């Protein structure tokens, strides 16, 4: 599970470089997120623009990451592809997370 984390002041952007967060990869995703979010930041913006598919285990892992981060830090999402957006919408998790259409200006992937 490849994640790239880049700090922009108080904002940490984590890009998932994988095309799915599914039952086979959800635990690994959560563990890697736990590691990369050790970097102090007020907000974590999870860039899901490369993720084409997320199942209920993947959704549970994203929720789990938010809970791991504690009440004082925010996990926000950006770049939901259509099927991923559908899972968040159907389960009403789109009302729990702040979801952005695109990364803030000047913070697009540099790779």
């Amino acid at each position, binding site marked *: 599970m490849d994640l790239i984390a880049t700090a922009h002041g108080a904002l940490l952007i984590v890009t998932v470089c994988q095309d799915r967060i*599914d039952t086979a990869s959800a635990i690994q995703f959560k563990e890697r997120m736990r590691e990369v979010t050790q970097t102090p930041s007020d907000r974590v913006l999870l860039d899901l623009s490369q993720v084409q598919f997320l*199942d209920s*285990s993947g959704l549970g892992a994203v929720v789990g990451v938010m809970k791991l981060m504690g009440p004082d830090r925010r996990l926000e999402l950006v770049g939901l592809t259509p099927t991923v957006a559908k899972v968040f919408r*159907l*389960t009403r998790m789109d009302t729990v997370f702040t979801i952005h259409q695109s990364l803030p200006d000047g913070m697009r992937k540099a790779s």
Partner: protein
Amino acid sequence: MGMPFGPEREDLHLVITSDPLAVRGGLAGLLASPLLGKLNEAERGTAEIVLAEVLNNIVEHAYANMSGNIQITLCSQAGGICVNIHDQGHPFPQEVLPQGTLPQTCPTNGLPEGGFGWFLIRSLVQNLTYRRDNACNHLSFVLPVEPVVQTVSSSTPT
């Protein structure tokens, strides 16, 4: 079952082992098949969500830690793709499908981290049925598909 299939029927059969990586590979194969490949993007997304949830549920609950096979049959019918899935794992409790209500935020544990699977399946399929028979689980449902818009050119007088 037992119906004569005409040559126009594109039935698809797949057997996978009960394992999360086999589910991932099986899904890729099913989605690349002509039957699901001709769906629009939203319908393919729905098919992937539903099939992933059903198959992962079998791996996790029906077979739990046992090994076993999962048989999947897809066929095209009016209004959608008919899906039949069989396994030889444990039955559902009381041999009844889960209600699949949307998990709620718990006052002590906060947001739910699981329990979304059957809610998603029930939200997205039609004619969902389950039968336990000869130590085998039989699940069937229809993935709704929009009728393909016919081109009007052939019926337009020239």
